[in-house]
């Protein structure tokens, strides 16, 4: 039966040029379905990768209890002092605890792509902040001087927004600042931010000595438990303590989920449409070759061989469509930069990311469409009545 199947399959495939229009239509429709699915996957993965990033497990993030996000949180200077004295806080070489009280406000920037305004975070940080961001390095220029109106700008901001070049004067609010450095953190969330000295920000925005969040480096990942206990026992502290990893993971949620809740149902709906199309194509294929198939059967080829021949034709069209869609998606989507609203009302800049896993998902979807679409027609081919040899 194997040899028969191969023979029938080759006959089937060789006759595709007679049905070229319909076959091409099927390939393209499946390719489109795969491309749409992979577009959404690339979006969601890219967004998630940026936001979840490489959150470290030995950095603790402190927010006011129940606030869930920095913007909603508020801590006093006393809170920061108490944290500095807590257990498990790592110290720099000179003994100062690696702790950074931070606060951010939302400012406007002009997106290069749309020339419209969009929100950006202007974060006030202490001088220890670079030690609390994995992979932080100044790629151009220098860090801002404390107490000055200087800014350092994340590489993503530079990419997506205009007017933040090195040396540019930037007007935010009522003040003019100067960009003195560009920093990179390997593509994580921090790169979508603009930093300055926290003292300057507190002053300008009348926050007194209050901050929104505190980041601290721990002596070890396990030390976070001791810190949690410490905070729980201390009546003056009303805080939520999480590792940076946990904090990022919870922030990624929203938008990434939204993209997936939209993307998968859409892709499946389109897949059903493509499936109807594939079925139609295979049905027509069998139909137009009824006499041919009957002749083969009259000669002695088995019904099973006819079944296999049709299934292979269907899966092959689907595979070509799937690979085409995946290839086009990779070329078109991978790496393109985009930005959208993150959980803190600011723009998150991310890159579309076409992962190998997404490609597998896409091609798998194509194969399923090819399989289901070809199944009934293949059975029909196996059961073509021999008398059809006389069909005109």
């Amino acid at each position, binding site marked *: 039966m194997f040899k028969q199947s191969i023979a029938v399959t080759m006959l089937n495939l060789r006759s595709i040029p007679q049905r070229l*229009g*319909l076959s*091409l*239509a*099927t390939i*393209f*429709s499946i390719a*489109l*379905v795969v*491309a*749409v699915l992979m577009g959404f996957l690339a979006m969601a993965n890219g967004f998630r990768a940026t936001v979840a990033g490489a959150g470290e497990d030995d950095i603790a993030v402190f927010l006011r209890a*129940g*606030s*869930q*996000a920095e*913007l*909603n949180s*508020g801590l006093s200077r006393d809170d920061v002092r108490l944290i500095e004295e807590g257990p498990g806080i790592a110290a720099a070489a000179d003994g100062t605890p690696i702790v950074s009280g931070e606060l951010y*406000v*939302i*400012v*406007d920037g002009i997106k290069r*792509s*749309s020339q*419209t*305004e*969009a*929100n950006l975070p202007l974060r006030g940080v202490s001088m220890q902040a670079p030690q609390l961001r994995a992979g932080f390095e100044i790629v151009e220029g220098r860090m801002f001087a404390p107490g000055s109106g200087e800014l350092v700008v994340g590489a993503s901001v530079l990419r997506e927004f205009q007017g933040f070049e090195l040396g540019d004067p930037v007007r*935010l*609010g*009522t003040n003019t600042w100067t960009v003195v450095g560009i920093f990179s953190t390997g593509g994580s969330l921090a790169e979508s931010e603009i930093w300055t000295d926290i003292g300057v920000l507190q002053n300008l*925005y*009348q926050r*007194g000595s*209050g901050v929104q969040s505190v980041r601290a480096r721990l002596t070890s990942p396990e030390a976070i438990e001791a810190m949690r206990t410490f905070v729980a026992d201390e009546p003056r502290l009303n805080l939520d303590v999480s590792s940076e990893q946990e904090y990022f993971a919870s922030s990624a949620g929203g938008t990434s989920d939204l993209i997936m809740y939209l993307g998968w149902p*859409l892709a499946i*709906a*389109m897949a*059903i*449409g*493509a499936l*109807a*199309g594939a*079925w*139609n*194509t295979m*049905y*027509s294929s069998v*139909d137009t070759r009824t006499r041919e198939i009957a002749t083969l059967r009259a000669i002695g080829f088995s019904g099973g061989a006819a079944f296999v021949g049709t299934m292979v034709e269907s899966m092959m069209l689907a595979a070509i469509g799937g690979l085409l869609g995946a290839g086009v998606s990779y070329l078109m989507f991978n790496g393109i930069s*985009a*930005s*959208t*609203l993150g959980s803190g*009302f600011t*723009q998150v800049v991310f890159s579309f990311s076409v992962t190998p896993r997404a490609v597998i998902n896409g091609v798998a979807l194509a194969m399923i469409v090819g399989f289901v679409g070809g199944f009934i027609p293949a059975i029909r081919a196996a059961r073509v009545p021999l008398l059809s040899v006389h069909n005109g």
Partner: protein
Amino acid sequence: MNDATLIRKGLFRKKLRAILLMVSIMIAFLIFGALGAFYTVFTAGVDVAAANRLITVNRINFTVSMPFAYWGRVQQVDGVENVSHASWFGGYYQEPRNFVQSFAVDPESYLAAYPELVMPDEQRAAFLNTRTCLAVGDDLATQYAWSLGDRIPLLSNIWQKTDGSSSWEFDICAIFDGDEAAVPANYVMFHYEYYNEALAFNSNQLGWMIVNTTDPSINDRVGREIDALFANSSAETETSTEAAFSRAFLEQYGNIALVLVLVVGAAFATILMIVGTTMVMAINERTKEIAVMKTLGFNEGRIFRMVLSESILLSLIGGLIGLGLASLLVAGAAAALAGFLPGLTMPMSVVLTALALMLGLGIITGIIPAINATRIRIVEALGKN
């Protein structure tokens, strides 16, 4: 029997094929209808904006507050019929996950600014006169099963009271609704004074102001004058029309319209290809039959019309079913998404556009088969014995 019968028979000659094509078309219009409805409602903020309403926010960003004193000063600007203010409370009920959109407002001027908010007269009076009153939007009242007379504590994500807690107690004395489905009723309002006097920090500030001008034609002038009042101060303002403000906010999400158009475009390109090639094939199969019709005396024009009608009929059936399904989907999701997307329905604009697309699809997929049918030469077709 008549031409309609012939058209119907022609279309359903191979039932399975007709059904498969209809499924493809149905899916495309299901996607179009659902996405169209969601997008229209998503951007409705721009539609329900009043032409003579302006929003004034801190120039830095709408999340930064402005001094309370600004309210009195804006009232003096010529052309301002009414000015109100509101501030974001960041509220939740019992647990942080029970998010409640809450605004601290000046009740009288706020209701004047938004005449589309309706409630019974006695509730309106109660809201104006009771300091601890919480006016609750209809959708929210349903969601949390609140009723008039309930005493509700609302907690704030952001603000703290002098006594250290973040919980304000309110009495529900009014339930309001919008006069149209698209006007949101998924938030609560309370007296600014009651909220402000307990604030531990950031007191005597407001979030944004709502300005009603006497006529839309003076919007620009009024806006500029307001902003001029506060130029070069520590809190400069930016005034824009409500529509522009909503649009700007939506644009932050990115070019959603582009993504939707691409997806819908891909879906339609797909069915165009599939249905188009299949219809050409289907007519090809009937070459002999069409030749016989010609011998009987059916002229080319009539045959052209009949073949084109088949495509249009196919498109209409598939499209109407798809649109119907989309409407069901939207109706079902409306209740679940009331908090996020108020007034979710299938807009007439989407329905009309869909009908036009169905017609267009039918014509495009039918034109080549129809032309082919007219070009069939009787002698050649019948000669294939």
